[in-house]
């Protein structure tokens, strides 16, 4: 512990010396991210343009691979050597982890000047703040608990909309299955199994139960009968997916819904991008509907954490970047490209599609009802080792014939083990 701090301090001192000579250069920010393909890459390019138009010098550090694992490995070594990038794509409790190490910069002055407290939803502020200080900035809000449906297939069994309760959902899925239609398009990867799982937890247990079980890891909630019912429902859903689901990527599952090979997919709203890219129209070619729940809304917020940098140019660059990211203009451009909605409330949504408008309307309703909750499967609610322990159990249950009782007892055990 002590030694590491010494290393950190020495590193910072060295990089301070190295940068001192450039002290009066233009605002510079090095951005470490793994948005390197498709809409995400365009979204980053939009930020870069905006930053450069405001006089900044952008140093791009893309590290692709492993859904950010590679970037995190780079980040670790950069921080240990005292040369952290100014802004790093980082989300959820990982922000708190780095803040605890004392590696993150304080953004309170920008936050005050820009009035972030008023425009960022409080639940997201909690994620961005460490001990009351802003250390990161949100770029978007993805909703997890969506059902994407093919209306033509639903019509074949006489349904016009996505069910509003899980009982109706099961009834509809049974009907579809009887009619020879695969009810659910699913990719058997642990995170996708977990995406369905948390949607079911929210749906069957309600927001309060979700908070207790998936955020607070309350033991009574984890071993409750509600949790057993959740695993029962997972077993049912297992019967609704086709035989070839293991290992399939999520976008291929989305394509199944698009091409009429399966009726519905439970997936976050990045699935929308696939539909839109194929020229499909929401409401006509596909339906976006919230998965059944009592005013629940699971959010997945991407953000940039601001690391301690030294040198006036770098500090100025960092502050400029933070200001721009939360600014209306960037929030609009970025989220139009990424398929999510702005993390800042009150951005006009005229250019957005109907699904995005519904997302924000639901967000406001959920916020009032206390159902605006962080996603467990996407690393917003829990630290990696805790959510990993839950995901292990969920995926082991989904891919075997484990009973719900056993799944619940394993869940309690795994969480207990991961906690200490």
């Amino acid at each position: 512990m002590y030694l590491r701090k010494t290393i950190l301090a020495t590193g910072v001192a060295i990089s301070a010396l190295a940068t001192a000579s450039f002290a009066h250069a233009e605002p510079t920010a090095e951005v470490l991210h793994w948005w390197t393909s498709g809409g995400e890459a365009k979204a980053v390019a939009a930020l870069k343009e905006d930053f450069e138009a405001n006089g900044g010098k952008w140093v791009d550090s893309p590290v692709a691979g492993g859904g950010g694992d590679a970037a995190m490995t780079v980040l670790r070594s950069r921080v240990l050597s005292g040369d952290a990038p100014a802004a790093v794509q980082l989300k959820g409790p990982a922000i708190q982890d780095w803040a605890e190490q004392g590696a993150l910069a304080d953004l309170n002055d920008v936050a005050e000047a820009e009035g972030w407290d008023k425009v960022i939803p409080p639940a997201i502020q909690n994620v961005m703040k460490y001990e009351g200080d802003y250390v990161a900035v949100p770029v978007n809000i993805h909703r997890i608990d969506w059902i994407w449906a093919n209306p033509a297939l639903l019509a074949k069994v006489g349904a016009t909309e996505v069910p509003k309760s899980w009982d109706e959902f099961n009834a509809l899925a049974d009907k579809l299955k009887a009619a020879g239609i695969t009810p659910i398009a699913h990719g058997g990867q642990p995170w996708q199994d977990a995406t369905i799982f948390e949607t079911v937890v929210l749906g069957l247990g309600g927001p309060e139960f979700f908070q207790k079980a998936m955020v607070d890891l309350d033991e009574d909630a984890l071993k409750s009968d509600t949790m057993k019912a959740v695993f029962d429902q997972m077993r049912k859903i297992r019967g609704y997916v086709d035989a070839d689901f293991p290992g399939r990527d999520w976008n291929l599952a989305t394509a199944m819904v698009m091409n009429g090979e399966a009726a519905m997919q439970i997936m976050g709203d990045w699935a929308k991008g696939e539909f839109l890219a194929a020229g499909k129209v929401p409401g006509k070619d596909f339906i976006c509907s919230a998965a059944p729940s009592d005013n629940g809304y699971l959010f997945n917020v991407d953000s940039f954490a601001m690391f301690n940098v030294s040198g006036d140019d770098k500090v100025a660059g960092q502050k400029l970047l933070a200001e721009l990211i939360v600014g209306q203009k960037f929030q609009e451009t970025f989220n139009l490209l990424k398929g999510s909605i702005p993390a800042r409330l009150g951005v006009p949504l005229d250019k957005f599609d109907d699904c995005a408008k519904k997302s924000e309307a639901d967000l406001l309703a959920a916020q009032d009802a206390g159902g605006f909750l962080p996603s467990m499967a996407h690393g917003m609610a829990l630290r990696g080792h805790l959510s990993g322990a839950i995901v292990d159990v969920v995926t082991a249950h989904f891919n075997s014939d484990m009973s719900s009782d056993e799944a619940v007892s394993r869940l309690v055990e795994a969480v207990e083990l991961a906690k200490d």
Partner: protein
Amino acid sequence: MGASQSTESNLTASIQRHLSKIVVAPSFAASLFFVYGFILWTGYMAFSKSRMLPVWDWAGLRQYERLWQMERWHVAIENLLVFGGLFIVTCLIIGCLLAVLLDQRIRAEGVLRTIFLYPMALSFIVTGTVWKWLLNPGLGLESMMHDLGWTSFKFDWLVNSDMAIYTVVIAAVWQASGFVMAMFLAALRGVDQDIIRAAYMDGASLPRIYFGIIIPSIRPVFLSAIVVLAHLAVKSFDLVIALTGGGPGYASDLPATFMYTMAFQRNQLGIGAASAMMMLATVMAIIVPYLYSELRGGKKNG
């Protein structure tokens, strides 16, 4: 004049004497630091409380305790035993058989040898991806059989949690058995032809000659092959990642993929280090007796 000449020649001589050491020194130093240094460091990490960043706080055997309490680690270890055992045995049998068959002075031996050895030239990632397509019930073998009219054909090991690890065995055997064949073939060619001819004279049948004379005489090759295959099995990572992604669920996890998940995805450096040390111990258990017997044998010969 004379004195300086002699120092010069002394210098040249000493450089010549130490040239081999000087040339080897950098790589020796590098491997000392980057291999053995980091083994020691990982060993220490396994006793520390490290999670996201390496820390030096002592945690005793706690990480090992947690490791062995994890259901997933047990799955990984069982998979390693199944995979390693089947992989080594099948490779030896197939490799030995191919070598014996190729050894019959057949025509086009060179072509066949190349064909069998070729998979070794591929990277495990490629093998894994190709076999993933072949074994996927919706894309590969099963769907082809269905298209040909054999609709009851079922081969869903890749998507079946109980069988997924065997698909890894299939792909790995496909890749490595040609290499084992090459090792055996070289050894077979080295067997003294006079003994074989003598056995012929005595009227021994061909199988008898192989089982009684040739195979016992190439026993050292078996040992080398087992050591090579065993360490391939313990460290195999990319094949599983490409073929099954460790799935369905974590049903085909191996220690190496487990270690990666813990250390790089879940911020559990301590447990990751502990599992790495367990893997090292497994490899040592195989390599050390082998090296011991080799080195002792060398002394005897020398």
